[in-house]
């Protein structure tokens, strides 16, 4: 298990599938976390592995991806998976903290829920 800072944001694929939320393409566009090579190696990850991301606000299982990330930071595309773990507090501004939430990431055998299952789990 590693301590990380979770950020979320737009990606091309997320944007291109955002009007097809109930499709496999959208599922694939938003259901992963990008980790730095160091963190990838530290967790002993292989292509296709899943990780569980946990923060004070929730947890979610996503696919792991090696990305161009600084060590100790993971990126989840904006969408329902990221929203399971981001900080819902708006501090009076109306804007939740979608970026920069402290959490942990660990390798898991649990499956990645579908978009529908995710909604049911809320």
């Amino acid at each position, binding site marked *: 298990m590693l301590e990380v*800072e979770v*950020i*979320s*944001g*737009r*990606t*091309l694929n997320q*944007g*291109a*599938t*955002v*009007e*097809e*939320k*109930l*499709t496999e393409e959208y599922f694939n566009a938003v259901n992963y976390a990008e980790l730095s090579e160091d963190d990838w190696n530290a967790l002993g990850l292989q292509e296709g592995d899943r990780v569980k991301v946990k923060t004070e*606000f*929730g947890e979610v299982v996503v696919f792991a991806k090696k990305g*161009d*990330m*600084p060590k100790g*930071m993971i*990126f989840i595309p*904006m*969408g*329902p998976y990221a*929203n*399971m773990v*981001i*900080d*819902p507090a*708006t*501090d*009076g*501004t*109306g*804007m*939740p*903290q*979608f*970026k*920069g939430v402290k959490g942990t990431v660990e390798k898991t055998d649990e499956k990645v829920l579908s*978009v*529908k299952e995710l*909604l049911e789990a*809320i």
Partner: protein
Amino acid sequence: MAEENIICTFCGSVCDDGLFDTEKFKSKRLCKLGSSKFSKKERIKAPMIDGKEVSYEEAIEKAAEILVNAKKPLLYGWASTVNEAIRLGVILTEKVRGVYDQCASVCHAPGTLAVIEEGLPGGSLGAIKNRADVVVFWGSNPMEAHPRHGMRYSISAKGLLIKDRKQRKVIVVDVRPTKTAKVADEFIQIKPGYDYLIISALRAIISGNADAVPDEVGGVSKEKLVELAETMKNAKYGAILYGLGVTQSRGRDRNIENAVKLIQLLNRHTRWIIWPMRGHYNVVGAGEVPTWEVGYQYAIDFSRGYPRFSPAEFSAVEVLKRKDCDAALVIASDPAAHFPKAAVKHLKNIPVIQIDPFPNMTTLVANVVIPSAVAGLEAEGTAYRMDGIPLRVKKVVETNYWSDEQILEKLLEKVEELKR
């Protein structure tokens, strides 16, 4: 030739040079995001009440009942429809004494709060393409979020004074090396959450108070900050284009407020502007229309019969998290996918009306679903590009779906009838 000119209704760049082949149902010149917008996709087939197909009239009548019977309905979305529909939506919200909020609430609304604090010294995208010799993308990543922005307006765009990419310096400030960072002349990686402090330090350096600044701020060396400050002061016409990296992280509106103060200061030396990289194609309209109609951009409550603004109380996320609405109308948006789970939870517990062309996660929790025509493809109307420039998006394909404007007009009529 069945090729028509189109104006893209995906992102805030609102590229207006697209072409659309109505026979092949395929666009040309648009980016990946635009091409996906103008392609065949699964649609909501028909109006539905609790999963059962009904007529538009029946669905609208049911929707009107829900809104009129609610103590405090939330009417949310609006960023992906046209001004004509938004205007009806504002009037509808006023009529049912509900809460109007729009997607900026979870996107660029902190920028609006900064406008309230310090103003918005900006310029149009054309001004940037013509004049900007230094462009700073701060917490924004157009290569993923606005793919043609760089080519049309900012990075490699050529204009009146900038004839060549080499005449423009592009700097990216971000917490990670984004795709945009890779095409920039310089990338400054900062520690997440430290934008505010870095901007304060830049202001001090520019105003001659570098002595106060410590050797390192937010993961950036003082040396680097001094260099950036010099680049800024020596620009002829600079632009900071900020994104969600600033609005959605620690500091939010205060980061932008501080950046606006930096721009105020820089204009004492040379010309600088700042502008938000707005997301949805008409999220600007979703704020401008209520502003002229009722005085505020978002988070507007009408429970007393007149508008009040308070993001802490009337933003959609707060309203839902606090269970402070007893019905919701969601249009041209998908809060079930894009809100934190604490907010989505309440959406599952109240009557929800959805108006949207496409099935999405909100469809799964909606009681009344009203499919609509896609603006820019099947319906026309006015939209404001990210810089507020109005463009008339077009109808190039016939459809049996009602436009958002038609649906809302009818809904408003029904609400008036029920209130009588």
